[in-house]
């Protein structure tokens, strides 16, 4: 979203806020809290040529850079009104400054159980850590996978919406959100809406959510999570939507490397499901294992076609037609996952008695071609406000494997986070 649009949205929300606020309210009567953190990071990335990316510069990643990322969150309360805001900046050595308005919304409590909201906010459903299909409006490519699991969902831009929530009792809640396709606030997305029913199953130690949503691919789904005993958690998320998210790529018969783009089938129902289990050991080691299936992904035959296209355009550096084809392939394959079956595993191990130093290893693995990406993170809390960390990431698999094709991005980050 452009800064102009962001500014317009902020003005709109502030204007709405003033319309609703009683004139007698003065700023000093608000109960306000300001929190935030700032990260100073040194990145060393090694973007490399792959059969899909003939020139590393094409993906726009700097080899080495230092980045400062301040995040400021504000909450203010006054009687029935609450205001939430989060601004995130980014400043790197190349002086390419960025300012994102992640959240800014006002919530009005009709009473202790009914809430109305307007503005930009993030809504999340589901429990999966690897791939979260119940997060129906999230474009996974917007998530910065180099951040820790918690920060990935904090440092992300929300969506402009009108919201309604009703807490029926301590077990049941209903919610509805509308993200209108109005030029000033649509964030270049179509009209979207979501209705959700959340229910804590009494006596089963389980939660369930039912979702109905309207989007480019409208659908419905649900989530279920259940704790078993003192250490185990089981969770599943399943979404069914109408219309395929990925387009089919059909090679032209002449072997030139050119291809036709056939829009995904709009009539069929497609399923995305994640099943996971988490176990916490008495030593506080936490493990997660998840399986993810996506009907949208390319099947074997389609993937063979894609690989043949990639191979046919391998001389993109010298051939103009191949160059154009490769750029088009790149664009078409810009999705978080391209195939149907994945495994995700994560282990977090405290390596100090005081639990202030830990190692996290996470792997996303493609079961079809045995390619994958792994991230390792070592984090040390030095004081109540300072944390330092080292992050290493790389992919594995054959040169035409999904993750080797797309990422080709071994990277190392050294960072220091100050919380205030």
């Amino acid at each position, binding site marked *: 979203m452009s800064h102009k649009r962001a500014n317009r949205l902020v003005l709109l929300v502030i204007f709405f806020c003033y319309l609703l606020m009683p004139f007698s309210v003065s700023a000093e009567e608000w109960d306000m809290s300001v929190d935030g953190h700032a990260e100073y990071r040194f990145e060393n990335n090694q973007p490399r040529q792959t059969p899909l990316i003939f020139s590393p510069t094409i993906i726009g990643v700097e080899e080495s850079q230092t980045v400062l990322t301040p995040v400021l*969150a504000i909450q203010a309360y006054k009687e029935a009104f609450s205001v939430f805001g989060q601004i995130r900046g980014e400043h790197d050595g190349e002086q390419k400054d960025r300012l994102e308005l992640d959240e800014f919304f006002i919530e009005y409590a009709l009473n202790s159980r009914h809430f109305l909201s307007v503005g930009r906010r993030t809504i*999340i459903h589901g429990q999966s850590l690897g791939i979260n299909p119940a997060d129906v409006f999230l474009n996974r490519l917007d998530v910065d996978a180099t951040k820790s699991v918690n920060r990935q969902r904090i440092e992300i831009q929300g969506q402009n919406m009108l919201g309604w929530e009703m807490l029926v009792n301590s077990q049941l*809640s209903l919610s509805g959100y509308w993200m209108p396709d109005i030029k000033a606030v649509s964030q270049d997305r179509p009209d979207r809406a979501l209705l959700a029913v959340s229910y*804590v199953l009494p006596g089963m130690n389980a939660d369930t959510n039912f979702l109905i949503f309207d989007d480019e691919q409208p659908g419905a789904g649900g989530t279920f999570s*259940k704790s078993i005993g003192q250490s185990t958690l089981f969770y599943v998320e399943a979404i069914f939507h109408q219309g395929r998210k990925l387009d089919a790529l059909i090679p032209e018969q002449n072997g030139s490397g050119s291809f036709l783009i056939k829009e995904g089938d709009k009539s069929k129902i497609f399923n995305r499901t994640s099943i996971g289990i*988490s176990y916490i050991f008495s030593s506080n080691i936490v493990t997660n294992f998840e399986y993810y299936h996506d009907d949208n992904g390319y099947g074997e035959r389609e993937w063979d076609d894609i690989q043949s296209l990639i191979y046919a355009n391998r001389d993109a550096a010298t051939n103009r037609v191949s160059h154009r084809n490769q750029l088009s392939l790149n664009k078409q394959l810009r999705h978080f996952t391209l195939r149907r079956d994945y495994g995700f595993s994560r282990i977090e191990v405290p390596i100090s008695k005081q639990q202030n130093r830990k190692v996290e290893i996470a792997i996303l693995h493609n079961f079809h071609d045995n390619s994958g990406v792994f991230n390792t993170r070592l984090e040390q809390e030095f004081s109540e406000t300072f944390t330092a960390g080292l992050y290493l990431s790389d992919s594995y698999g054959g040169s035409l494997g999904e993750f080797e094709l797309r990422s080709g991005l071994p990277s190392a980050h050294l960072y220091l986070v100050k919380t205030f």
Partner: protein
Amino acid sequence: MMLLKPFFSSLTLFAVLFVSFIFIANSSLAMANCAEPNLLEKVDAIRGPAESFQFQVKITDPNGSNATLSVRIKGQAKNLIRYIAPPRSKGRTLLFVNDNMWVYIPGSRQVLRISPGQRILGGAASADIARIAFGLDYQVIDTEALPDNLGERRCLLRLGRYSDAAIYDTIELIIAGEEARPIEAVFFASSGKRKLKTAYYEGYQSLFEQNRPTILRIVDHLNDDEETIVEYSNYQLTATPDAWFNPAYLKRLK
């Protein structure tokens, strides 16, 4: 003197028998008290002064790191824990309703179900702080009278896991006095033999017309017997609205 010797021997024998009788009778009496059916309820009543209340907890781990939490209790089964400090954790909230537990991490806008065994800081598990009532998760398997201390009865209660939320398999709880003040609790792993930690209930103060512990000293046997200190303060009787115990409310807590 020779005539008196049998007399003294008889007297000594009598004295020994009398003292033994008193001791046995006393022990029998203590044993009877320890078999009292509502001992665990008494213990829970000491740890929880009212139906609905709140307090603050300061946890200091063996490294000297601190966490300050605000805790709200409603009934025996609904608990809310909110981090006040350190800044890194501020706003993080844990919700317990019966056997269900969730965590909310500020900024993430996501409420996640968690396992009861999740730790807060040092040797303190979330359930150690929030599950005020033993009777929710454990039942008395047997009791044993211990020697009196300063004229007060002391009982050992062996507690066994009762609910899924119980994070220990067995607990050996030592209580003292007629009011059944908790003194010491030893927590065992699922094998029933592996000692995980020992908690000492200390700093008894008069709160709401009864002596209640204000310090919980936890010795972590899995980590070289390192100590975590949990200090309770600012007890207030407050009625927390029911809506606050809905997971969807967590992001709204101030």
